[in-house]
């Protein structure tokens, strides 16, 4: 029987109260949202805390998808199912729905949250790759107010984030740029709902002439954290999208990533996947931007 080590259970009723508890309990406490990453880690005793602070009651406060003219704001307690089912979100950023379809299974998606996924900081985690692809920023709140960090700053290593012991991730902000845009996500997994062997997200913005105004690729499971590849963006900007350009991007992805050989596959195979999935998602993103 897998059971976590003993801990004291606390339940937060507001963000401010959660921060108050964290201030008091410090590093001996951890927030739990959906719990579908953290509880399995605690069952395996890979994570142990004296206090667990349940923030599921904050869904009313932190569960939302707000679409603005120049920014989409998503509350950290928004559950996978809500992200999957939001037509408005799929309209602006189809990459979310692509990714959500391949995250775990429908029952797990009823519990897991965007904020929990990002805070888990697993190198193979899909929404981290999506947020990296979309150049998202993370709003972190503490007793002294809010600070906003980029995805690159948010993930400081495997299973490590910029969120301090007395802080809470409250919101993800994604810039909405003008012009035609498209995005897509693709994942290779050993079995349905598994962690990625490798996955890739791509987003593309076209100017009036149909040339690439900006492009971004985010990869999961090929480095210590999900990886954005600025070299691809630089290589693609200003060009008209075509197959040779996707090939170039794939080659850059394969060369820039840093996979390791493990039970999910060899480093060589993962580089091959980074190449192939980069091309595949860019192709799809362009197709969507043009339609």
């Amino acid at each position, binding site marked *: 029987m897998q059971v976590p080590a003993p801990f004291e*259970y606390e339940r937060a009723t507001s963000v401010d109260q959660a921060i108050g508890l964290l201030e008091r309990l410090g590093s001996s406490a951890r927030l739990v949202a959906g719990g579908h990453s953290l509880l*399995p880690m605690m*069952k395996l005793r890979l994570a142990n805390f004296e206090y667990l602070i349940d923030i599921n009651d904050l869904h009313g406060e932190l569960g939302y998808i707000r679409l603005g003219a120049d920014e989409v704001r998503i509350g950290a307690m928004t559950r996978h199912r809500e992200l999957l089912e939001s037509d408005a979100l799929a309209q602006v950023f189809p990459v979310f729905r692509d990714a959500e379809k391949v995250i775990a*299974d*429908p029952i*797990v998606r*009823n519990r897991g949250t965007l904020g929990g996924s990002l805070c888990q900081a697993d190198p193979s985690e899909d929404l981290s790759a999506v947020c990296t692809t979309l150049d998202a920023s993370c709003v972190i709140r503490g007793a002294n107010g809010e600070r906003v960090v980029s995805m690159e700053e948010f993930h400081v290593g495997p299973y490590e984030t910029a969120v301090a012991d007395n802080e809470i991730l409250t919101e993800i902000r994604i810039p909405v740029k003008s012009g035609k845009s498209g995005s897509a996500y693709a994942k290779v997994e050993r079995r349905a709902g598994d962690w990625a062997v490798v996955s890739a997200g791509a987003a593309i913005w076209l100017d009036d002439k149909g040339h690439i105004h900006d492009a971004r690729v985010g990869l999961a499971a090929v480095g210590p954290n999900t990886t954005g590849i600025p070299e691809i963006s630089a290589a693609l900007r200003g060009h008209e999208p075509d197959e040779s350009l996707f090939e170039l991007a794939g080659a850059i992805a394969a060369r820039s990533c840093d996979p390791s050989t493990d039970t999910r596959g060899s480093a060589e195979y993962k580089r091959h996947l980074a190449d192939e999935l980069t091309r595949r998602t860019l192709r799809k993103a362009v197709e969507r931007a043009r339609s």
Partner: protein
Amino acid sequence: MQVTVTVNGVEYTKEIEGRLLLVHFLRDTLGLTGTHWGCDTSNCGTCVVWMDGEPVKSCTVLAAMAGGREVRTVEGLANGAELDPIQEGFRQCHGLQCGFCTPGMLMTCRHLLDKNPDPTEGEIREAISGQICRCTGYSSIVRSVRWAAVHEAEAAETKEEAVAQ
């Protein structure tokens, strides 16, 4: 710590450890062994119950998290001696062989029919994609859910006609 959970309409208040998982609370503390405990890793889905109307894997939910919430288990499906149509469907169409996955399958499929009364085979397979039948009886499970969908629709029509008359 003390927790109060409503299970199948009955309120229970119990003294528990914070680390107690909902599946063990249901089975061991309350003696409701209809909910099965399988893989312990939120993969197999035999422990699925509803919490506030949503199917959840109870091996990955703390009993404390269910405090103040409403839980529905497989014991809460039948109305006295009258089986829920989803249970009757599994009975009619051989939707179970060894029966180990059945409680989770029933809870997930009941929820599916509540949201989508006329699901396609693809939609049924998607709904149960987080659940494993170790007898691999998926085709029979799909047929059972379709049986329930058809019979529920017929029953609703008969009721409407009766009301109209």
